[in-house]
């Protein structure tokens, strides 16, 4: 799953290496508008609908956070 998430993230912000273990927001790799694009891509890829209440930066701040969120929706 991580490889797919990295592929999606890289498609959104190709100038960054999302393999790095850093906070994507604190390091300026994502902003709040990137979340919109990211959620749209994740919804489509995993055939889910991430609840609006879960669309907060903390849930998209790292690969582990995104993977954890997707697991909550049964994504595999």
């Amino acid at each position, binding site marked *: 799953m991580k490889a797919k998430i990295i592929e999606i993230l890289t498609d*959104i912000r190709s100038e960054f290496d999302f393999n790095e273990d850093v906070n994507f927001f604190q390091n300026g790799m994502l*902003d*709040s*508008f*990137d979340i919109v694009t990211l*959620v*749209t891509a994740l919804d489509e890829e995993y055939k889910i*609908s991430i609840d*609006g209440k879960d*669309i907060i930066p903390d849930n998209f701040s790292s690969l582990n956070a995104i993977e954890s969120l997707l697991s909550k929706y049964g994504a595999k």
Partner: protein
Amino acid sequence: MNFHFTNKKISGILTILPGNEVTFEDEMGNYNFSEAKSLKLKAAMGFNKKRIVKPGITISDLCLYGLNYLLDHNLLQKEDIDALILVTQSPDYIMPPTSNIIQGALGLKSDMLCMDINQGCAGYIVGLMQGFMLLDQPEIKKVVLMNADVLSPKVSKRDRNSNPLIGDAASITILERSNIATSITCALKMNGQGAFALQIPAGGAKLPNSPETAEMIEDANGNYRSKDHLVMKGDEVFNFVQTEVPPLIHEVFKLANITKEEIDYFMFHQPNRFMLQKLADKIGVSRDKMPSNIVENFGNSSSVTIPLAITFNIGNEIENKHYKLCLSGFGVGLTWSAMVLDIGPLEFCKQIDY
């Protein structure tokens, strides 16, 4: 707070759109972002084209154009207008009220009420509520509700957060008493502690416009705007809407003693497609029943988006058919509102270009 109205109805809706159309691509070069990134956002949010006025055109111009259209086509008679309500955040002047200016320009009778209401995205429902309340007065038989905003001059052209979505428009809704027993249910909430999530910082008494407030400043996301411009804390507004609106919708269903399956259409305020689709999913209704196509075709025109969603999506049908609608407006204030009502057949439901 809940409201209930009986024996009232909407008898006609007209929306007035500036003829001037601007596309997302026309302005994409203004933003401090790569083209690829901007296009991805365009797809997710539903940005495409919007209608904005030419310089110098204000809300009274749009409202008067619409009112004269109705008068000229015998869809409204001057002497029948007992109240003019105008919901706007972009009045022609700080004083006098723009509704009085419109009354004077049309030469309406003096034995009537003119009223400006400062409300934004929830302003259609606030205006309807005010109109329905006035109709309880014996001398008020017909209320003309105008929703109008020209906010495009208040948005920085270099602000990708707001500029792609802001449109200008006006609507006129005719409210009357109904001979048929009708029941309209409404729920409304406000939270002034979130008032500055959407604001224009300068231009009022607290911070008058000055060369200092006009200075363009880059924000953390690469947008440029001044304190004279509209600023929106997009993530705060998004989370407010996703958290507060779904429970309010369920509350209004409970009050009206109906189920969501009985609703023909959910005509909601139109901030952007992404937010509306998430709301539809959260409330558990088909995305087809909640149109989200106003921003992509006309832009977000604040309190006009609900009547515009009606005229654009079901304008032809509703002149001959009856629908049960759930309306919801949310935003500036912070204010969030929902209304369930039966509507149609309407005497008119159309949109015209200015």
